[in-house]
């Protein structure tokens, strides 16, 4: 697939890295900053073009003729939209994805379409991150909460801790613990290494467990792996930028929310637009301020300012002062690896979250949802089983008849409105939505082929 990425910022370069890592893709990256491009080209096997991303000449130089996918990720919404418009008008690029930050545009889906602004998918990283954090807050204890099948199936990862009923027991004990609930443990990571979960695998403390269950059963299942956490009642957010503001707006109806912002101008603007949030002007890494605002009573502290170092520091400070769970927005992968699981409970990586949404469109049409896991090493995908007169590689087969790539497991099957946890004798039907977990994403192409119709060997 020929892919053009406009903008080599955080998300742009991560996307380039992920996409170029798949053999089938030819990636071209466009940016105005030569040195950034040079650096990127040194690291990755991609082509780079320097110039204004919205100019037809630049797009032409980037090979828009014959490109399959245009991903506009520059920092300007307007440039992104115009680039998509030009790519469509001049080059008929079939799929166009644009990052749209401003809620004013994003909140009006009717703006985007064939007859208006030709953007096939508008991605708002801020909105994606907000939703992501909101889900984490809703399921205290979870490290990651991912939705499939319109939110009816959840993939949750959490750390097994003392107090969890299953900790120290074999996986098959789940059946007797919660007899009427269907759960699939998709993967277990112990000390950074993935272990294939079998019935006789024993869950140990500090294991990171990925499991799939229906949304309504989630709370019950989570108790198996860690002592039940009290519900979240109060949240402190540091940073009233796009993410902080949206998060406060989404949470303020249900929870007590405090929002700390350093810039008085931004905090005033936030205070004017929020209704039940207490907006504080000050530095989130200021110990006195945090103590004054009873940080030790906070159930969750989320640092989402633009400066990741500040996020790390304020989250660590909040943890030390007694906040129950702290999360920090961290862009740099090395920082995230360094911090997560230590003094910071959850490192939120905006790139990983955004990439998932991007990948859904890069994969062929049968893949409806992709979530990048463990910083892109693993992947969870939701794909539709297609069949035509020549049949399909998996439709009509029992689960134990399907040869999956190494490290891939089938997590759940959604048939119509029904959520099925597959056993070895479950038969996959055409049009099922299958949720797969891949501990090694290098096998993603292999797995994807299973879902295409008529690819029988």
């Amino acid at each position, binding site marked *: 697939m020929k892919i053009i990425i406009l903008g080599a910022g955080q998300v742009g370069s991560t996307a380039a890295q992920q996409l170029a890592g798949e053999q089938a893709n030819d990636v071209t990256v466009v940016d105005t900053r030569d040195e950034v491009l040079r650096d990127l080209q040194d690291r990755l096997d991609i082509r780079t073009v320097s110039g204004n991303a919205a100019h037809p000449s630049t797009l032409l130089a980037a090979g828009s003729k014959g490109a399959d996918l245009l991903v506009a990720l520059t920092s300007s919404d307007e440039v992104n939209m115009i680039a998509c418009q030009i790519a469509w008008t001049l080059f008929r690029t079939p799929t166009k994805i644009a990052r749209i930050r401003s809620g004013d545009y994003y909140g009006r889906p009717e703006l985007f379409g064939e007859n208006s602004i030709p953007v096939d998918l508008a991605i708002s990283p801020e909105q994606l991150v907000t939703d992501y954090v909101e889900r984490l807050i809703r399921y205290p204890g979870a490290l990651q909460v991912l939705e499939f099948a319109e939110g009816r199936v959840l993939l949750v990862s959490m750390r097994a801790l003392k107090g969890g009923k299953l900790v120290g027991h074999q996986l098959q004990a789940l059946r007797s613990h919660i007899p009427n609930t269907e759960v699939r443990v998709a993967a277990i990571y112990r000390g950074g290494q993935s272990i294939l979960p079998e019935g006789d695998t024993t869950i140990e403390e500090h294991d990171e467990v990925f499991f799939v269950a229906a949304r309504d059963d989630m709370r019950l299942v989570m108790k198996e792996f860690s002592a039940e956490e009290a519900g979240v009642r109060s949240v402190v957010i540091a940073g009233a930028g796009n993410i902080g503001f949206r998060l406060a707006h989404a949470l303020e109806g249900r929870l007590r929310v405090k929002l700390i912002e350093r810039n*008085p101008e931004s*905090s*005033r603007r*936030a*205070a*004017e637009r929020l*209704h039940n949030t*207490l*907006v*504080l*002007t*000050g530095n989130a890494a200021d110990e006195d*301020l945090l103590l*004054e*605002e009873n940080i030790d009573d906070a159930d969750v502290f989320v640092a989402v300012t633009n400066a990741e170092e500040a996020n790390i520091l304020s989250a660590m400070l909040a943890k030390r002062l007694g906040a129950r769970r702290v999360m920090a927005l961290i862009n740099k992968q090395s920082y995230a690896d360094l911090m997560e699981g230590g003094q910071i409970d959850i490192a939120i990586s905006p790139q990983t979250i955004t990439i998932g949404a991007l990948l859904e469109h890069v994969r062929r049409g049968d893949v409806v949802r992709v979530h990048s896991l463990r910083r892109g090493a693993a992947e969870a995908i939701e794909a539709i089983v297609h069949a035509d007169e020549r049949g399909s590689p998996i439709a009509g087969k029992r689960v134990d008849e399907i040869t999956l790539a190494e490290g891939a497991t089938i997590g759940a099957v959604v048939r119509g409105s029904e959520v099925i946890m597959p056993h070895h004798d479950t038969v996959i039907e055409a049009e099922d939505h299958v949720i797969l977990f891949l501990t090694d994403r290098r096998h993603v192409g292999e797995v994807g082929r299973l879902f295409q119709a008529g690819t029988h060997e």
Partner: protein
Amino acid sequence: MNLAMVQRILGLMLLMFSLTLLVPIAVSFGFADDHHQPFLSAMAIVAGVGVLLWLPVRNVRRDLRLRDGFLIAAVFWTCLGFAGAVPLYLSDLPGLSFTDAVFEAVSGLTTSGATVIVGLDDLPKSILFYRQQLQWLGGMGIIVLAVALLPVLGIGGMSLYKAETPGPIKDQKLTPRITQTAKAMWAIYALLTAACAASFWLAGMDGFDAIGHAFSALSTGGFSTRDASLGHFDSVAIEIVATVFMFLGGVNFALHFYALRKREPGVYWQDTEFKAYFWIVASVVAFATVYLWLDGEYPTFGESLRHASLQVVSMQTSTGLLTTGFADWPGALPPLLMALTLICGCAGSTAGGMKVIRWLIVFRQGVCELKQLVHPSAELPVKIAGRPVPQRVLNAVAGFFAMYFIIFAALMFLLMIFGLDQVTAWSAIATSINNTGPGLGDVAWNFRDVPDSAKWVCLIAMLVGRLEIFTFVLLLTPAFWER
């Protein structure tokens, strides 16, 4: 300052006012009460003065400045007080002194409804009608009427309009053109008045009383054509009609406008000020009903509810149409009802007082201050309906409160100097500055027994209150007169 222009507009407006005297003349002939003479003479005098003012400067054409608007409003309302007094002074039937005539006219025009006349039942119909008409003209604002009818005022009309319409936020125009806005306001006002008159008539009043009391209720004035006010009719139906329309008179007319244009009554409930207004009225009615009932003032709960609701709504909207009165009610109720008139109706209504919105803003500001003590670094904007109130408005409201209470106190002490007792003095000023009418003590029903000096103080309070303090106080500041 553009004195020639001010003079010209003043002349034109006096001419316009003289034309309104045609209506009582018609009433006089209609009822054959043989009392048209004072109105004819008054018309000639007022029109004559108007022409004299207008003739020398009739060709002056200049745009009105903001300052001119304040000056015109203040001077015109004062002149109007005297002009309105002319027919009452000339007429021999109530036999009013000069002071009493001016007091009665100002009381009517400012929609206060405090009267010095006893024996209304025996007065000629034309005089009675004239008093009601004065209130009706003053209710929506005679300057607003002038803006609507006299296109001569042109663009500068907005500054006039601002000087007369009540409320802290005056920049809302209902329509792009100020003349149309003024016309819309008057049209709705007339429509509601007609509806009220028809309801009174259906509830059993005769045509004359129905129209008279409709004028009084919608303008939240309070003059009645009867000595015993609404109590004369002793009819539950009439009292319900009066309560409903007084309540409507206390609502922002912009809301009536939107509700009518969109044909959707939901508009009212979306308005924060209306909600506050409604809940204040509802809770005080409930409180007063229970209080009266438990105290045994009225034998039954229904009877308590009946009297409580009319009296409370009447005071809350600064109307002053009463049945039983409330001065003799037990304990906390009389001062509570007097205090209610300080809050009064919504901005942009015909009611007087300080307006619900100002209290709401001040109250929320207080709540924010309290929060700020607990969270010193919190950012706490004062919000109404989810929108932050601009600092400019906050300052204006705080300034208004300060001015209001300083003037209130000064005038009250003046009344005590003139020999009124404490209760009479404070209630007389409260009832005057809020354009309400009835007070406590010696002024519970009328102002007849108050010394002339005190009457002048009260009528100044009425004018100051009608133009919401600032307009008049402004004229006393040197900055206003500096070029």
